[in-house]
């Protein structure tokens, strides 16, 4: 076993584990035997910046927020393409302008769709 090429790795792994766990264990032991303990209900209550905590800490968050992230992408992508479009605007021919218009309108359509679906009203 000692001749195995992986043996040094195992030794290193154990040493690394001990290096991490030993201080934690010592701190735990120290706290267990020496730390002054004075618990009371106020001290053990949930910390909420000094206010009395209301309800449980394990609440569910609305996932509806991801829709805003997606709608943000519409404007994000649009901005990336609008800038070069605006810079090159005077030198563009009619076909390029039309292509750009189609692109912008496609994105606007996405926004209109989201709007119509009622995504923009937070309920």
């Amino acid at each position, binding site marked *: 076993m000692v001749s195995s090429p992986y043996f040094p790795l195992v030794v290193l792994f154990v040493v690394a584990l001990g290096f991490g766990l030993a201080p934690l264990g010592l701190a735990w032991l120290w706290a267990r035997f020496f730390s*002054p*303990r*004075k*618990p*009371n*209900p*106020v*001290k053990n*209550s949930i*910390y909420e*910046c*000094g*206010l*009395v905590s209301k309800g449980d800490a394990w609440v569910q968050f609305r996932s509806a927020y991801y829709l805003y992230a997606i709608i943000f992408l519409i404007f994000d992508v649009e901005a990336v393409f609008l800038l070069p479009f605006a810079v090159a605007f005077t030198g563009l021919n009619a076909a390029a302008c039309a292509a750009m218009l189609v692109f912008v309108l496609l994105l606007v359509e996405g926004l209109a769709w989201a709007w119509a679906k009622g995504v923009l009203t937070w309920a």
Partner: protein
Amino acid sequence: MAIEENLKIELGKQGVFVTTLEELYNWGRRSSIWPMQFGLACCAIEMIATTMARYDLARFGAEVFRPSPRQADLMIVSGTVTKKMAPQVVRLYNQMAEPRYVIAMGACAISGGPFKQGYNVLKGIDRYIPVDVHIPGCPPRPEALIQAFMTLQKKIDEQPLTGENRPRFLNQNAQGEFPVPEPADHDLEPPSNPGVWSAPVVIR
């Protein structure tokens, strides 16, 4: 004290350092007083200045302002304590781990200061929690806060770990919870914590 003070100084001159467990323990405690990160009014600006490069509170091992009372040793009541805020301050003090200390910074925290006559200002945080060091001033300069730190360090240094005068956190029977006042119709209820504060006797 196992070793005489003079002998210790003499040994120190010879390069021999002797200490007691108590001294070592207190040295560790006083050199790592972590304050809680909260400010109440204008005095807090001076507290912030104290932690910055010019005054450099780090020299005292106290630059680590903790955002949670669970990790803090010291509460600097820096500013006006309104009656609306007082329950929160007392609750935060209760939520700090022992050993814990309080510095009342500025006229407001000591007595209500310029707002003493106000209907909504607490006339001193020492009505609810035990204060270790009071510093007067409106606001106290950073030097004054540093002076308060040094006073507190001296106080910690001199605390015996056993016997009648041992600090509260080592005394199993000492009071650990300080009742949080509740807002009532005209004042906080109770107006002060008995055992912590009693009305001063005016001598005429």
